[in-house]
């Protein structure tokens, strides 16, 4: 049985995650407004309902993550060659984004 679940929810700011939520739930935020939270956990389930989150299967979550990754990679590719983000000697240098395999 999976230890974690993925929820798609957009953070609106104050009150999206409260200190009380944080006391009971471990949060991991991923690209695509994905939140990895404990599975089979009442606190986590209540939080998800409270933020109008939509539960995603692992496959669906991976697809959301991958789609966002393509956007990130395209954004990097579209940067001018002389952009600070592409200058390895710059403090603002970024490598081209790479993805990961999500796990539950």
């Amino acid at each position, binding site marked *: 049985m999976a230890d974690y679940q993925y929820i798609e929810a957009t953070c609106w*700011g*104050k009150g999206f*995650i409260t200190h009380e939520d944080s006391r009971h739930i471990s*949060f991991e935020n991923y*690209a695509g407004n994905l939140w990895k939270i404990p599975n089979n956990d009442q606190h986590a389930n209540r939080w998800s309902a409270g933020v109008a989150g939509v539960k995603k299967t692992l496959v669906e979550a991976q697809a959301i993550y991958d789609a*966002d990754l393509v956007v990130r990679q395209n954004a990097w590719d579209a940067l001018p060659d002389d952009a600070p983000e592409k200058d390895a000697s710059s403090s603002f240098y970024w490598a081209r*984004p790479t993805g*990961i395999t999500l796990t539950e």
Partner: protein
Amino acid sequence: MTNYLDIKGQNVQSVASDPSPVAIGQVWYNTTSNTAKVRGFISSNTWATGATMPLVGPGQYLSYASGFGTKDAAVSARGYSPVIPPSTPNVVHYDGSTWTSHTGYPDGGTSAQGFGLQSAGIVFGGDPSPGPARNYSYDGSAWTSINGPALSVYSDMYTGGTTGAAFKTVAAKTSPTAGFTEEWDGTNWSDASATMNTSRYTSGGTRAGAGDSSAGLIAVGNAGNGPPYSLSTASESYDGSSWSSTPSASQARRGMFMSGASQTSGMIYGGRLPGPAPSIPSAFSNGTETYDGTSWTTRANGPFHATYLTGAGGAEGATTWGGDTEGASPPSNYVGEFTGVYEGTVTIQTS
């Protein structure tokens, strides 16, 4: 049932309303609420999301901004964004609920160091290095030019202190200035003639360092006199004359937020982790550690992974904002609020 008079030798004061001020350890009985109360320390060590920051959001990010102040009275000044014009004031205050725009920082640039309070803060240095003088004090509404430090390496430092009191700064990026320490006396900077045990630089940290020149604390960062550098977990404190190694933190990182009140009260959050490939979460930390003068303790992870972020406050409570994930996730205007161990009043439970 235990009688308080028997065990403490004192009667408990009965009052209609909670007394003010109260001292740590003070016990009283509130006859209105019919509750016994005690003043003590409350250990929370949790995160919550704060009000979204107006300077960042979809399509834009803000990194290397200068943060200072407290959790609920914070200032963000300047910073780097590819889509925010340099002429944008980029100075906002946070009161714990709302961000408001204020008088713009007089110069451009990034990675300037910030410390002090919202009504008595200092921002100095920053890239490009050495660049023009960018040293200012701030009274909450206006910026005033001040003297800058002697060292020409103006970024990647560890700082801490208050506007009028002494202050330390360390620039460790290049030899022979590795581990170099300067102090601020409210008017001028001077060579402290002290060198860190582990020379290091923050690599993008603009609010990195706890305490002041008589009780300072630094930790983690890029260590060595490289390149190449290596991420460090080393921690050390400063007593006004020399640096002493202290127990190491758990997570090696750079570009983190570090702050705190003294050498016995510090926190670290976020930062860049080892590895060249930018992906979430493997390359960016959402880890939190606090220091109590004896050891670093891993606390609850923050809600967001980010590096080159900034913030205000310390181990008792902090607000963090800005930063990025080197393009690995969409730019965000997320704000994190940390509540650590703080003084508070609790109701004594009978069961």
